[in-house]
């Protein structure tokens, strides 16, 4: 494991410059273990995170702070298990 990832918090700063999360319904595609989710989730109405990696999703679920409105689902981005027009904002996170 790397000693540190982004201690300068450039990702967080840029994410918040590009998106207004306040009161938004957010879908994060490729949420992994929630590392990025925690950088904005508190301000949202709710966050749904999807990923294919069950182990990462388990970590995200365990580490979710109790005051953060987030849930995590194992799903593929080519078949997103939510209704039409459910979200105000989508984040494609680190999709290589």
């Amino acid at each position: 494991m790397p000693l540190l990832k982004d201690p300068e918090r450039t990702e967080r700063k840029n994410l918040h410059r590009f998106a207004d999360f306040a009161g938004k319904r957010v879908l994060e595609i490729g949420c992994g273990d929630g590392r990025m989710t925690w950088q904005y989730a508190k301000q949202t109405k709710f966050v749904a995170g999807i990923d294919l990696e069950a182990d990462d999703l388990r970590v995200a679920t365990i580490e979710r702070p109790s005051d953060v409105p987030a849930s995590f689902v194992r799903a593929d981005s080519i078949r997103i298990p939510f209704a039409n027009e459910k979200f105000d904002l989508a984040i494609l996170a680190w999709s290589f």
Partner: protein
Amino acid sequence: MVHALNEIQRVLAPNGSLIDLRPMMSNWAIEVASMREVQEVGRVSDLPEGLEDDHAANESMAKAEAQKQFVREQEEFFPFFYYWDSPNEMKEYMDEDWSDIITIDEDTWKNVQSMWAVANADARLRIRVKMMITRWKKI
């Protein structure tokens, strides 16, 4: 990614936004960083799979734009740093997590090790990943 973009468009409300945040292959710099100075000691080599992934993602977004699914509102690049305590820890991480997208050639590896050997006591080794962030609006 084309199919994913169709799905994202479906679940986004009218005027919803998509943030595309991802690393770009660009022979990321390897640096020795201490409180006193930052020194670039080499560059990683991009592998075809990483470059193809970049190309495919860019093409998918361009297609979505051409088909008027999304319109690009803002795009910028910024650095994202990974830090390690030693060259071996960095190499181990690269081999485990990035072996399909980047590699480090022998000359660069030797240079990293020799520069690390004379680095300041508080130095850390880091890789500067080029990140792209784009905000798209659903049309």
